[in-house]
């Protein structure tokens, strides 16, 4: 990869990289992301026949 290409790319900070695998934070994110996804699924789903 050229330095010119790299110069214009957003890079994560050390803190961001740390939080990505920091267990207490990721346990919280596990719950938060699941709740967000359940919201999307509930909004998108239709029910069975006759409904």
């Amino acid at each position, binding site marked *: 990869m050229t330095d010119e290409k790299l110069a214009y*790319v957003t*890079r994560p900070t050390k803190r961001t990289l740390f939080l990505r695998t920091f*267990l207490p934070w990721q346990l919280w994110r596990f719950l938060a992301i699941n709740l967000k996804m359940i919201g999307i699924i509930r909004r998108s789903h239709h029910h069975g026949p006759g409904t």
Partner: protein
Amino acid sequence: MSRVVVLGAGIAGHTAAAFARSWLGKEHSVTVVSPKPDYNWVPSNIWVGVGLMKPAQVTFPLAPVYERAGIEFVQGAAREIHPDGDADRSTPFVTVERADGSRTQVAYDFLINATGPALRFDKTEGLGPDAGNSLSVCTPGHAAQTAAAFAEEVERMRRGERRRFLVGVGHGTCTCEGAAFEYIVNLEFELRARKVRDRAEITWITNEYELGDFGMGGMHLKRGGYVTPSSIFNASLFAERGIDWITRAHVEKVEQSRVLYETLDGAHHEQEFDFAMLLPPFSGVGLEACDRDGADITDRLFLPNEFMRVDADYTAKPYEEWKASDWPRTYQSAEYQNVFAAGIAFAPPHAISRPYTSPNGTVIAPAPPRTGMPSAMIGKAVAGSVVDMIAGAKAPTHTASMAEMGAACVASAGANPFTGTAASMTVFPVVPDFERYPDYGRDLDRTFGEIGLAGHWIKIVLHHLFLHKARLRPGWRLIPE
């Protein structure tokens, strides 16, 4: 008594058959026709492709599951639809070809075409693992072959060799960039885990106009006080992982250790490799349709790309005039009320991403994805409509427009319970609706994405949960699509 026949046992077909059987009384029959004996949870094929899973962990035999559920299983490939019957029988049927070449007729009252894609490696010279020079993760067999090649590359690097990896899509009109993306970041993660990363040069090649397009026009995320396009996050991840990229590319030819490709500016280039995993473009599976007299009516049921015409607006129009309402809602054939298409088998009205053509006339534009959650939701909605129509409804009662539904997606970026990560994403709706959401086409409160270990845990949970559901084990109906 009504006969429901489902062509295909992928995510859409299997979901449709399971719900139809669950909702219909025993006096009605449900039959699945599929050339493959096994179900494949395709999203996990990428882990087979780096050697973390065996094909048996992403597949299971369909016959015992269908026997337990009361679904008839015909193993064979559907070849012809006779929606008006033929000279000998007045009722509709499908001609099915078995592995030994013999043909049989399967009668239906309602037909759900969920045949999925044909993998068109033939569209690019030298593409593909069978007759070409590149690898694939489209099937468990392809992925296992890719894993063996990957292991060989790792051994070479352990002996001190430097190796070049090329991953992406092998044609200007491919879809499924998301799967190739998961593969490249997992490959990079595994090279680090196996302590040979410093000897690998990894390059991404894609038909996307910008990184992070994924065939759905990319997405915008609210982050840090800005609305940021997904291209920024994709480029950031690649830069962080030391992965170089080539965008706006149409692969023209794959030679033994070199790809030749054209870019959107019309220029021709080449890229050398030692290992190439390039996904193929898709088409429909080539089903034909005949009227009662045996005349070919394929063009009435299918588009030239072999995907089935449904209740979409197929009028050719420029990108600026595309609308969310062009997309199908019921997936009913416009020609036959008792015929539906689900999953990849239905013909989209147009792409989602803006299409581009090079000065040489080469179309370089991702085709729209119809995988995973949307396919399963379409299969379930179609099953609901068929069940209601059997009960007397005059028209389809259920809808599942991709312009009205959201999707949740977890893209693995490395598989390890403590150091792995995945990008968790949701979009709403899948197809942007610029009339409803004028700025970005999507509801930004329901469109988000983040990378982290939690995403990997979710990906693992989903792998087991969806295989449990597909095996129709206790409680399967409670697991959402």
